[in-house]
């Protein structure tokens, strides 16, 4: 491997299909990525781009049927977690991979106290007794910045505000000291000032605990502030991937380039007219034989319609380590890629 460290999570060629009455929906098409220890990988894409489904399918959280993971392997350490049994997978979820979902109101159980829910993974995975679990849960709530943690243990989710609930979710996800934390749009349901609080918290926790994080979002601004590496998804595929500074400075895929231009800025120059990406996101009816972005792409040419572009590296490093893009068009030369 290019830079030594063995990835904690290595996903190769993941393919997820939803079987519906109207035919198969190819939600995730041969998605490959990896996560190095202590790294924060940002996953960006619009709704329907397959970013959440990718993460859900790799830890078996999708209802099957209708979902079906057709191909791929997901290596967590040395085990392929797509191959292991449901009981074994249960020992991975919450223990080795923590999860934070978008909406903290619907992901916390309203009829149990917050303390109870933070203690659950500790009792279940770590085999702690009640007293130990209680003490650890108070520690965790304290860690995520909930004031007066010991007393708030007895409160129910509805007694917490949105930002505080998301802190509780983070405490639960961190309870068993996981190797990987997957955060699926963790700040989307929150206001900007609360979002800023949560982002600061995650930054702080990373330096303290050093786990690897996958952060899913549609907000490129959030990604710019926290990620080490960014993966852009479109139409169920990874279209571009690279280190955050590199990707924002030198976006290669026409979709990434257009996306960065459509967002108005709060501080920079104000555009008199917003740039738009014409058209609609694709409906993923068939296994792709063409580039999914082709109908909306300003640079498409004949080859784009007949061949789905594979990911190719930009610069020196091999695919998956440096900056790579899935496009037949070459942004640097402004013409087709040889």
């Amino acid at each position: 491997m290019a830079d030594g460290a063995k990835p904690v999570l290595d996903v190769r060629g993941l393919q997820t299909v939803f079987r519906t009455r109207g035919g198969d929906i190819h939600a995730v098409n041969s998605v490959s990525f990896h996560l190095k220890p202590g790294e924060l990988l940002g996953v960006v894409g619009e709704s329907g781009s397959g970013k959440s489904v990718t993460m859900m399918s790799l830890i078996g959280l999708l209802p099957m049927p209708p979902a079906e993971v057709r191909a791929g392997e997901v290596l967590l350490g040395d085990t392929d977690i797509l191959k292991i049994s449901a009981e074994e997978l249960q020992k991975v979820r919450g223990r080795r991979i923590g999860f934070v979902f978008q909406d903290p109101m619907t992901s916390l159980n309203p009829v149990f106290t917050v303390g109870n829910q933070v203690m659950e993974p500790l009792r279940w995975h770590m085999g702690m007794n009640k007293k130990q679990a209680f003490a650890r849960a108070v520690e965790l709530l304290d860690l995520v910045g909930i004031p007066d943690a010991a007393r708030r243990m007895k409160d129910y989710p509805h007694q917490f505000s949105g930002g505080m609930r998301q802190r509780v979710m983070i405490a639960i996800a961190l309870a068993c000291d996981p190797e990987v934390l997957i955060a699926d749009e963790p700040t989307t349901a929150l206001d900007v000032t609360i979002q800023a609080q949560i982002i600061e918290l995650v930054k702080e926790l990373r330096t303290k605990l050093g786990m690897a994080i996958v952060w899913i979002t549609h907000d490129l601004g959030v990604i710019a502030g926290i990620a080490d590496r960014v993966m852009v998804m479109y139409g169920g595929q990874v279209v571009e991937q690279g280190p955050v500074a590199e990707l924002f400075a030198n976006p290669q895929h026409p979709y990434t380039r257009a996306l960065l231009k459509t967002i108005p800025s709060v501080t920079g120059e104000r555009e008199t007219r917003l740039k738009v990406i014409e058209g609609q996101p694709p409906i993923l009816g068939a296994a792709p034989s063409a580039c999914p972005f082709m109908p909306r792409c300003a640079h498409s040419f004949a080859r784009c319609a007949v061949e789905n572009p594979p990911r190719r590296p930009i610069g020196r490093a091999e695919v998956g380590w440096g900056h790579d893009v899935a496009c037949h068009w070459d942004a640097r030369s402004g013409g087709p890629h040889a």
Partner: protein
Amino acid sequence: MLDAMPDPKPATKLVQVKDLKMYFPIHTGLLRRHTGDVKAVDGISFDIMEGETLGLVGESGCGKSTVGRALLRLYELTGGSVTIDGDDIAKLGAEALRKKRPTMQMVFQDPQASLNPRMTVAALIGEPLDEHGGMSATEKLARVYELMDAVGLNRNFANRYPHAFSGGQRQRIGIARALALNPKFIVCDEPIAALDVSIQAQVVNLLEDLQEKFGLTYLFISHDLSMVRHIADRVAVMYLGRIAELSPREPLYAEPLHPYAKALLSAVPEPDPEHEAKRRRIILQGDVPSPSNPPKGCNFCTRCPEVIPMCHEVEPDLLEVRPGRFVACHLVKPETKTPAAGSTGRPEVKEHNQQGEPRI
């Protein structure tokens, strides 16, 4: 100076809001006695000029949507007045109000929820014409087609149902409905919040085109500060039922004056890693207090990083501290501009000193 924006057009005030109050009663106990109020909007005043877009920003629960709805009298106001195009909306009788409705329309946040799934696009867009128009069937269809062209929908889809459209297209149907009666004033209540980033720009550009074409006046309610910067001429920042700052767009984004406006703008993440790394964020502590029990004095005093003792006692008034910029904060005093100490400068300064000087 930079923020001395000369008025570009000989503006007439289309909408005048004076001391608007909107309380929702709380009833508790067995007898459902009236025990308190949720003060969603607590005495705000502003004007919207003809052809202007006023942005209204704030966090959820600050009352921005309530303002939008109260302006069109979708609620019965608790107090204050709203004058749109000469008539006080708050006092109009049922029939007069109905006659007034065509001039003021609304675009809702969620096009999925605001369109009847059992009506075709033609029926949806034609419904306001049935209610107010008195047109013949052929006239109506012609008008529906005209509207569909205006918002960029394909005429061939007139007989389809909303489920057959994507989110952005559904929002276009909602906009066509709002336009059907040639309104002067449209309240856009988070019209792009439910849409994807790449679709948001399409809808915002459409709203701008329509404004230019039909001379519309917008109240654009949003929590997306970057989009508001793009579309609005002036921006009002709301916090807990009151306006914290009301300024022309550029000076507000260049140099926010109210501590809440500062914190809010600094919290918006920018899609630029270099800029993000250098940036110093103001992280507000805690949460927004409940509007049923707002703090005494300035409503931002519980979270304000620059709070002084006076803030807990005295409620600040919304004062014009720079030309065209209104701020409700004890710390922001009207500028005593020496170069501009002409005939108008003097008396203004004196007046504000009496009100704004802290007594500590």
